[in-house]
């Protein structure tokens, strides 16, 4: 299935993200990953997923899957307030820059093999993912945001709010959530 970028002028090139048509694929990739990482941006507290905020959804997800979180921008405090302590606070470009270094990981040993992104301005995530596509061949990336991100390895297509909520719920269920 093909998809177009949400901001239409953002034409990526020959290598475009595979479209997530079955959210269970994301669950399977998370379960299969040896060292996943979640990179959460400032929009996690501005974006609603069904009857809660994206930040609350992500806390459920990473809690179930055991994924360490890097909170970008100033958003770490929002996780703290909810009783979840992210592994690190780093800028979006800082963490992506480090992810291009196969010898770096949040835990200090090994190399991350899967990075999930959520809650960034569309164009910022677009370029951050591009940086990884070109400089981090060891890494697979998934955008969990609502709009198609062609520079990711996997991305949802452009979805309505309801479709997106449903998809995220299915991802959660796929890893054992409610």
């Amino acid at each position, binding site marked *: 299935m093909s998809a177009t970028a949400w*901001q239409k002028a953002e034409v990526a090139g020959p290598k475009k993200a595979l479209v997530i048509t079955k959210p269970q694929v994301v669950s399977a990739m998370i379960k299969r990953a040896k060292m996943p990482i979640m990179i959460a941006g400032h929009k996690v507290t501005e974006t609603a997923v069904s009857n809660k905020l994206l930040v609350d959804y992500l806390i459920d997800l990473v809690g179930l899957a055991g994924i360490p979180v890097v909170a*970008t*921008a100033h958003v770490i405090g929002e996780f703290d307030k909810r009783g979840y302590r992210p592994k690190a606070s780093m800028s*979006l470009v*800082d963490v992506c820059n480090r992810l291009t270094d196969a010898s770096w990981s949040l835990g200090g040993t090994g190399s991350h093999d899967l990075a999930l992104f959520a809650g960034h301005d569309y164009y910022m995530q677009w370029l*951050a993912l591009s940086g990884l596509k070109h400089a981090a061949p060891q890494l697979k990336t998934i955008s969990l945001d609502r709009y198609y991100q062609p520079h990711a390895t996997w991305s949802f297509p452009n979805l309505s709010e309801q479709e997106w909520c449903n998809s995220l719920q299915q991802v959660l269920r796929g890893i054992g959530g409610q």
Partner: protein
Amino acid sequence: MKLKVKELKTDLGTFKDLEISLGRVVDESWEEPMGPTPYPSITDLRQWDRTLLERYKPFYMPFCDLCCLCTYGKCDLTAGKRGACGLDMFGQQSRIVLLAVCIGCSTHTSHAREMVDHLTEKLGRGYRLDAGNAVQVEAPLTRLVCGVRPQNLGDLEEVLEYIENQITQLLAATHTGQEGDPLDFESKVFHGGMLDHVAMEVADIAQISAYNFPKSEPDAPFAEIGLASIDTSKPVVLCVGHNVASGVEVMDYLAANKLTGKVEACGLCCTAIDITRYDQSAKIVGPMSWELRFLRAGIPDVIMVDEQCVRADTLEEAQRIGSPVIATSNKITYGLPDRTHDDADSIVNDLVHKKILGAVILDPELAAEVAVRTALQVAPTRTSMKKPLSKEAVIKRAEECVHCKECLRACPNGLEVENAVEAAKGGDLSKLVEVYHKCIACGRCEEACKSHLPLITIFQSAAEQVVKGEKFAVRVGRGAIQDTEIREVGAPIVLGEIPGVIAFVGCPNYPRGPDDLIEMAEQLLRRNYIVMTSGCSAMTIGMRRGEENKSLYEEYPGSFSAGGLVNVGSCVSNSHITGAAIKIASIFAKRRLRGNYEEIADYILNRVGAVGIAWGAMSQKAASIASGCWRLGVPVIVGPHGIKYRRMLLGRKEKREDWMVYDARSGEKVYVGPAPEHLFYVAETKEEAIVVAAKLCIRANDTSKGRQIKLSNYIDLHKRYYGRMPDDIHLLVRTMADVPITMKEEILKILEEKGWEETIIPDPTLLPRMIRKKVE
């Protein structure tokens, strides 16, 4: 310099077709010895650049996977592939950055060239440059880079020739089959940025001197800014762009013909800043993002464009409102007839009677006369154009929306345009007003709209009451920083007692409206940072009233001192910001300036806590301005859209080996921590930007008292915006004396947990030649 003599008879004999070439004339009256790199070539400072780039490595983020710059291509450079020319993606991206910087640098240089040529023609090569009585180091960048001390307008020509030559070489390096190493591309980027700052300095000291702009005046006068500051009952001449020559002539023509106060002269973008430096009866409409708004409001009776940052569709927009356009620069001619050599009467007649839509007039005096006379005649016929849409008309147009959401997809900031239009259908215009507040008026939504709605006009009309209140006060650009100011604050800046110098510069491509910028400036002023500003950012900072109904310019002094808000002027005045950093090294620390780039940059990197924030940076000029900061050791933070510059320069604070410097006293290598951590950084939010700015002010040479103050601000801001302590305190505390007293308990616990060990505070340098005593 070349001398040609057809025939010269001397005692020695007769010489025919004699040609003598002279190198540069050295100013023997300047006692300061020449440093190692006067007029540096594109490789002379490469070692310094690579030293910086080893610490602050590029992180590339390509827009797309392709290179499409030559007919070998398009070439797919995805993930390690090379193109037909052999270049890989990192090389290609650094090449794109260099291209952007060449565009930016050449734009300022061309501006400077036009200004110097114009003023030389008017005033002569011998016209004395004068930056003000309190300024002895009148051209710090020119002195530093070129090793010359310009005294007259004519002295600037040689400097411009050097820059023009260097830009040609830099641009040549971007050709297919030239440079291939990303870091060497980046070194050339730095070179272009350095040249850019010299070019800006040339342009500004020429115009300050010739037009008698405020000369380093902390108490520069105020001017009015905002749409509501324009009296629409009078004929209105709008000047748009950056080259003030024709705007100055407008003010002179008005004065000479007793029309001052009877005709509104106003400006957009940097021309606006500069005409108010000349005459405060001129008004500033706002930064460049106000252009489409102002045109759609139908207010200007004549639109006079010069150069840079002028919308390419100005002529089409002018036609919509029935206003003639006068193009005064050979860089923007819009297909209009060149009437430079016609008499004013005939041009005015043709414009007033719409025989022509506009005219190219490359003589500033003639352009000014034509603009004012045309405005006087056209204005009475245009009164009906100067009204916004009624509420009923807004609702009626809103009903044409077909909910395709193309506006949402086109908006660079994802503003909820469709929802606002939907609400307007039911008579609720409040959401349109919200969009107006955040909108940068780029017009992309209109281009996408399937119903061809004039959305910018709709937002503005809905916000009519808001627009009526848009009248503020801005202190006009003061020019350079006085030598005496540098003497007074040099020590507290270098020792760290003033927590930092933070410059808000660049374009108004704001992610969430102008308020973020104003809030950041205010927060830093309250904390006694020196806040400098220029160009569109300087305008934006003045466009909000605080609790006492005052703009920040009315609340804070204009001096280069703790808590001062220093508007240096227009885009080209950015040179005074880097110039101030250089002058701290020269005047306060008495380091030699002349042709001594590396030493001064090394000093600034390690000692002067200066940071630039280009929150809405959009242009190639902003790229070159930033590049000039990087080579000089000044970090730059950009707002979210700045990520589209596609390359950051990032330090890795956990890599201890990256943060070693020489102690100039002993030659030993010493760990100084990540100070400053990055050279080019993009922030997602204002909260992130302000915290990172406070951190990037930290320098290796801070005294313990200074480090305490800087850490206090960093930690306090981090707690306020991030809600917890930063995770890198242990990397920024060198000795126990660095620990802020009020936070001692908390910090000591962290230091213990992290296994922190005390280090020394060195006399830091990255240059081996600065070591005074070699290690035995």
